[in-house]
């Protein structure tokens, strides 16, 4: 019951709640393979592969079937960039019986074969994925793209159209279908597909570029230039946003918070909903002693990334500073659900527990903080690094577009 609630929470995007439940389950029943496996999946998504590996191993010890174990291991190895090892893991998973993960395993093998420059093998793998799960839109998109790259637009169109029937909002599919129609010389269908892509997602820069080029090639100069003008404007903003944010982080690390704040304001003017910038602005404001405004930015940054423990830690700090201890407690506990190996979190939890009259817990937290800090090679984490890792131009374009 608790497990299904946890999984349901995770699927609803209530990550902290779901993880808290999963941790309770593995605390009460260390032999819960399913709970460990789900924790491994979430930590993998968070980029905490070290923790993900630990849970995966626990899951295996708890008799998780080899099929699921190796498929998840394949995912982890793939995230690490270790392609041959990932492929081997997926294959072992398939041999052992991956159940409903079988199609996903084949799709992943297909992706890896593409990356390893083995297109024929990739083709086979994607076809296997689709044979097992004909409604796997991702596999059809990947197969369509592969056909495109092999100059086989006819087959690309078949797969991409089916992918879009299955998932009309599938990222990247409209652009790929537009390219395929363009290769076939079917300009009208190409334009229609690219426009649909832009209607579905105005931040789809690939569709916009391809559409602009196609319109220019067709002599529709004004429309083509308009699309490329918009493309250019967005790219320019991405470039400026990236540079302003980089400069802001550099200044913040140097303790020049005034200048960092100015640069972050600039960043957020360019990309008003850019989660990474809001997160860093929150930290900078906190460092400058402006907890109320920091709270505002940190709360907004959670929308973009609800899995960043650093954000909850900073939220807790901000609440604590303005005397809202209950809120501070809730936030630091959330941070600890996501990451219970950061000494700063435990030290701060100690302060919060003290203020909320929980001396035993306070002492335990402070002891834990001291223990973590005494570990060989311990280094205080860089507060700016957590969101830096997640930055991507696509995310900035969405932020610029207000999406």
């Amino acid at each position, binding site marked *: 019951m608790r497990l299904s609630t946890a999984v349901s929470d995770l699927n609803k995007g209530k990550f902290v709640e779901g993880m808290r439940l999963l941790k309770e389950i593995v605390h009460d029943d260390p032999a819960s393979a399913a709970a460990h496996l789900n924790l491994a999946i979430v930590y993998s998504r968070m980029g905490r592969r070290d923790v993900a590996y630990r849970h995966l191993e626990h899951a295996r010890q708890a008799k998780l079937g080899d099929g699921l174990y190796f498929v998840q291991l394949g995912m982890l190895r793939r995230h690490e*960039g270790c392609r041959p090892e990932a492929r081997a893991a997926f294959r072992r998973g398939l041999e052992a019986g991956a159940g409903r993960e079988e199609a996903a395993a084949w799709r992943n093998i297909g992706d890896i074969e593409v990356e390893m420059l083995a297109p024929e093998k990739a083709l086979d793998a994607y076809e296997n994925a689709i044979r097992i799960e004909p409604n796997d839109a991702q596999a059809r998109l990947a197969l369509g793209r592969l056909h495109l790259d092999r*100059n086989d637009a006819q087959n690309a169109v078949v797969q991409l159209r089916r992918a879009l029937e299955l998932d009309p909002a599938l990222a990247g599919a409209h*652009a790929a279908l537009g390219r395929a129609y363009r290769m076939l010389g079917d300009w009208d269908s190409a334009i229609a597909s690219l426009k649909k892509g832009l209607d579905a997602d105005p931040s789809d820069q690939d569709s916009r570029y*391809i559409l602009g080029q196609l319109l220019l090639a067709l002599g529709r100069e004004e429309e083509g*230039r308009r699309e490329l003008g918009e493309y250019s404007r967005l790219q320019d903003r991405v470039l400026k946003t990236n540079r302003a944010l980089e400069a802001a982080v550099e200044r913040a690390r140097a303790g020049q918070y005034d200048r960092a704040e100015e640069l972050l304001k600039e960043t957020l003017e360019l990309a008003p909903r850019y989660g990474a910038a809001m997160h860093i602005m929150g930290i900078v404001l906190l460092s400058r002693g402006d907890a109320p405004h920091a709270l505002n930015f940190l709360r907004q940054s959670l929308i973009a990334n609800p899995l960043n423990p650093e954000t909850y830690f900073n939220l807790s700090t901000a609440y604590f500073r303005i005397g809202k201890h209950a809120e501070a407690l809730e936030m630091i506990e959330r941070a600890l659900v996501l990451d219970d190996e950061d000494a700063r979190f435990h030290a701060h939890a100690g302060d919060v527990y003290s203020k909320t009259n929980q001396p035993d817990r306070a002492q335990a937290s402070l002891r834990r903080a001291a223990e973590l800090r005494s570990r060989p090679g311990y280094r205080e984490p860089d507060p700016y690094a957590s969101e830096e890792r997640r930055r991507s131009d696509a995310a900035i374009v969405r932020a610029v577009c207000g999406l």
Partner: protein
Amino acid sequence: MKALFIVAVMGAAVSVFPAASGFPNFVDVAGQLGITLMNICGGASKDYIVEANGNGGAFLDYDNDSDIDVLIVNGSTIDRYKRGGDPILALYRNDGGRFVDVTKQARLLKNGWGMGVCAADYDNDGNIDFYVTALGPNVLFRNNGDGTFSDVTAKAGVGDARWGANCAFGDYDRDGYVDLYVANYLTFDEKVPRRGANELCRYMGADVFCGPVGLKGEPDVLYHNNGNGSFSDVTAKAGVRDPNYYGFGVTFSDFDNDGWPDIYVANDSQPNFLFHNKRNGAFSEIGLVSGTALNEAGRAQSGMGVAVADYDGNGYFDIFVTNFARDTNTLYRNLGNMFFIDATLAAGLGEVSLPHLGWGAGMADFDNDGLPDIFVANGHVYPEVDGLNVGQRYLQRKEIYRNLGGGKFEDVARDLGGDVVTGKSSRGAAFGDYDNDGDIDVLVINLNDRPSLYRNDGGARNHWIAFRLEGSRSNRSAVGARIEIEAGGRKQVSEVRSGGSYLSHDDMRIHFGLGDRTRIDRVRIRWPNGNTEERGPIEADRFVTIWEEER
């Protein structure tokens, strides 16, 4: 008016061994002919990006004896560079097909960390000069006309201290003096992290050197030749706006055939630039709207080298850009009116290029059938790929694409076999006819290895003609001159260029393959200043020198 002067070089001096496929063979004769300089470019482990980018070379006739000599630029190591670096140049004089190291006699003993080279007669004195890019100040060498060179960098004002990559001379304002474009790469200083230092320093799971992504790019620079031995930095004034992209390949070419040279720059990991010459001393950057900034999927690639030719015979120069592994090289087909389409897949250049990491490239008619083919020098940047089992190797073969006509190419290197499929980590490539036998040979600079000189054996089975142009009112090297020939009703077009490929400079004589045609009906030259003249008919299989009419 000076007379048309024709130098006939009939009959090939070397043995001809036609390849089974009908395409010429390429035989590496560098060692045999005395070109033996060992390339130095960092250590074997490639801890820093500067150790991986390699060097270039040039074919140039520095002694005006009608055969092309070889100039090679060399790098250094991190440790030695801190102590002044290694000799950055080696000049080999072509003595009837053998090469003699004349670096010392030519007074080219200079230490540092060299990168690339481009050449032209910047002072119009009849002797070809050259510019060397470097990690640290670039250097302009003036040819004294007596077999020696002088470092005139300070006087000329072109000692850009940033990390220079490719350079190219071109007379963008048609004032009779060649100007200079330098593509700068990135800021390389003590802050650049070592191999594997952070998440940006990983490739397919392995720790590798850091960059370029994550490091600060350096803007390019355009120098205007003042005509008095000095240059002025006109980058901003001329509208050459570079938002600190990582510049690599660069070439001047008149892409819209309006008589005014434009500039194309291949940027690493960023969109490429096409600077359209506005004919008023300024440029507008039209990479995006021209279709040459990104590939057809709308992605910026890792542009390395650039080659230019009219591969489809429509009278407009097309662009070929080499890119990183797991990505295609890109062929931009020029439709005229400054609009290009990415013809890579349609031309058959897509999937086949994926395992290769391309650098130097040339579009030349290697089999003299009248259609420009493509040669690509390849080599990975990460030695670690050999241990990754990911379908890529550090040492890579060359790609040679035969132009089949109809916009299609086929890779013939594997069928040719021999020296071009021997794995090397190659970088710069220069193209020219070093043995004056009527077919195009290739000089390739290999990273931490000796250079290769690929002698073309069999190209001259077909007929050919080559032109050396000398400007009078235009710049003396005739850089920017457009030359169009007609033979048997078929037209071909080419252009005199400086720089290009990757860090390299080609033989400035313009070569055309003629197939079974034994003469051309006419040649039409549009000189860099816009004047045109026409000659013909001219018999095939010879070098023809044409001086610009003094009118």
